């Protein structure tokens, strides 16, 4: 069994640290050691996308990463999407308005993937959205509300930027 190592990184704007065995998954570290249970585990083999976070600004599957890989990095999870005063991100507002969630379990991953999609492509077509979000599985919504929500959020973000 390898020795636990010190891990230190920025997450949602704050520096956090702890110790982790090299084999400890990043998503387990975020949930158990940092107490940020918003990021969810759906498959542990990188398909469902519920564990999607932003790693140095890009979407990444935290179930396929090790905690020690995050050393010195800058992470954002769903808890970091809303503003410090609690004001929801346009994506969160749009998801709420358009019924883009039902059980909510895929939602954190879907939000982070949508955030990354809009970073890369601020004017996505419906097809772009469906393809861009195909990496996160939802079993409840049929994706319809999600697609509408991302369209609406993209429009709102363009008009306020």
């Amino acid at each position, binding site marked *: 069994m390898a020795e636990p190592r010190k891990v230190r990184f920025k997450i949602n704007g704050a520096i956090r640290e702890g110790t982790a065995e090299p084999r400890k998954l990043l998503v387990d570290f975020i949930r158990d050691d940092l107490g940020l249970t918003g990021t969810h585990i759906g*498959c542990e083999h990188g398909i469902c996308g519920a564990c999607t976070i932003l790693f140095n600004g890009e979407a990444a599957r935290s179930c396929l990463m090790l905690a020690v890989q995050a050393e010195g990095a800058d992470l954002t999870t769903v808890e970091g999407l809303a503003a410090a005063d609690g004001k929801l991100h346009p994506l969160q507002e749009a998801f*709420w308005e358009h019924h883009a*969630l039902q059980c909510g379990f895929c939602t954190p991953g879907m939000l982070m993937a949508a955030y990354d999609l809009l970073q890369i492509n601020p004017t996505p077509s419906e097809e772009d959205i469906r393809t861009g979000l195909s990496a996160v599985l939802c079993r*409840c*919504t*049929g994706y*319809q509300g999600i697609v509408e929500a991302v369209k*609406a959020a993209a429009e709102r973000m363009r008009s306020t930027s």
Partner: protein
Amino acid sequence: MSAADSSRAPDPAPAAIGKLVGARIRRVEDRRLLTGRGSYTDDYRSGIPLYAAFFRSQDAHARIVSIDVSAARAMPGIVAVVTGAELARVAKPMRARSTMPGYRSTSQPALAIEKVRFVGEAMAVVVATSRYLAEDALEKIAVELEPLAALFDLEAAAKTEAPRLHDEAGGNVLVSREFARGEITPGLDRAAPAAAALTIRERFRFQRHAAVCIEPRSYVAEYNSGTGELVLHSATQCPGVVRTALAETLDMPEHQVRVIATDVGGGFGAKSSVYPEEVTVAALARMLERPVKWTSDRREDLMTTSQAWDEVIDAELALDADGTILQLKADVIADIGAYSVYPWTLVIEPVQTVSFMPGPYRVSNYWARALAVATCKAPTGPYRGVGRPVSTFVMEGLIDRAARKLGIDPAELRMRNFVRPDQFPYKTATGIVWDQAPFEELMLTACARLGYDELRAEQQLVRATGRYLGIGFAAYCELTGIGSATPAAPGMLVPSGTEAATVRVDPSGTVTAIFGVASHGQGLETTLGQVVADELEIPLAAVKVAYGDTASAPYGTGSYASRGAVMGGGAGILAARAVREKADLIAAHLLESDPRAGKIAEGENRGGRRISLREIAQAAYSGTKRLPKGMEPGLEATRFYDPYYGTASAAVHALALEIDPETYAIRILRYVAAEDCGRVINPLVVDGQIFGGVVQGLGAALLEQVVYDDQGQLVTGSLMDYIVPSAADVPTIIAEHLENLSPTSLGGFRGVGESGTIGAPAAVANAIADALAPLGVVPNEIPITPDWLFRAINKCRPEPG
């Protein structure tokens, strides 16, 4: 037609008080779910927990000769390793009971003791200070298994000479039911009725599926050795059922067992059963007097969470020259896996397939047989639609074959046979009563919205160019919100026919409505709040809806069988109404006016005085001095609701698709679901159930299949192999709603949660058959994969050159 019509944003103006039911209100539960503040079972942080990991069989059928856990026990961080024999001292095996004649029950110990019956069945459990260490120790468990002849084919398993999975059952056929109504000769392939111009005979196959909730199953058990209370946090749809089941298996008084389902990440029926892991985790917590936690990984989930459908149906439909149905016959064999699912029993799937086979049609003469056969696979259990996706696939497939042979338009043939509006209440051949359903109107609505006539014309044109464009229908009716007259499974451990609600007003005037139904995505926290708030004529924000905790909820079984709105709503109305009546009397008394004129009026002026619910509540809790003579203090009510029969919920699905002749890829051009779910509480929620259900149905039709190899190994053991639809795989769905209030349910509500999966496989199969009509290819199997299409089409294609 753009997607915007189907899921437009809610109105910005808040819905008026008393008019919340019917309003497109965004959900109250969403804020926490959107900000990562949901409370799923794996999020729950008890005291210092221990973590369980299960040692599972890699053999499909074997006798356990010996199991040696001594090396595992010695591993770092290991607190206990428990075998089946040891667990049996503190936990009785699960045995799903039924009073159905001919039913043979099976005993399922939480950890296998003498033999294992499917790959993935647990034989031992490791408990450690971390999940990582627990899984390390699994590798040190040594087991000696003596392989037994295994069975994976349901027809082979049904033979009397087949090796037995359960000696006590005397065979693998665990239930056999036969049913006949009207003038009919039992059995298939007999002489047709004299008036029959056509008999359609077909063998249908509906393969095995998995629910794949994005949240895997998760349990955290805590035991208080001081009070003797066991508390289980469980990702379950049915806290009440789990509580009763744990009391039975752990031999504990029911009032010492508490089950709490907080936020649950999807269920679809797969989280309505009681699982061996659930019983084990609870037993361990009690045994070790430490909190014990287990969360399934996806591989375990695909191996052990209850699977769905897996039936072979031989069916026959006889019609006269006008296309009027004369008789229907169906012989159903269901592969229910290794054990009878607990506590629903294996009966529910095949019997519902048979019960609902006649569909929305006038069928007076019906013969059916249902067999449930055990094989070495994971047990099947309830999954969205239970029996009805299969029965709809069969009946709608028979109807379409008849339409093609008779040269009658498939929509027209259905219209000719639908139960007519003047025939309700209509008792079907299987004894189910449809209280009311607008089948003809649904078909006309679906056709209009689809643009049916235009599509038929287009089809004629494109066929000439060698393109495969097809249109398909599926019409069905289901019984939702079933009451005590229609048990989900007769003689089952827990009764499913009632639900309850407590509505409580606090001294400060805030209202709590507590339910036995529990939400796992369907928005009950909002919709039941709308119902209660309207009854009390207060804003939605004044009502807190609570559910999922057996300690606070009046007894209820949970959310399944499309019953949440009908039964939770009905109980909520009764309880709120009782509170309202009492509050009105108190208000009138306080205002010294005629009790018949009393009315809660939030801020309303009455004779110069306003009276709020808060004032009324203060009076209610301050004692008899301020209350009408003889009135008991307090302001709360608990009511139970039994709709007795249940209420019909119907739909017609219609779609157009095109098949690429080179790649066999399927492109859905338009999908319409026309449905009637009675009074709509929240259009957003109903739309969401339709869209989500249809997409699950499309996955079932085209992508999903649980596959076992000939050694019983699960081939589809990851999400790479078991393909669940992604956003790129599915179209926009168009939902059309009729709103005929249920004449029998208290709020006029009908259930709608399962409807999508019921219609989609049948509609897709029919559309593909229609597209390939020039080749004569007619799918009789679900899923219709590219591979299936490739083989079928190439058999029929003329040779090139």
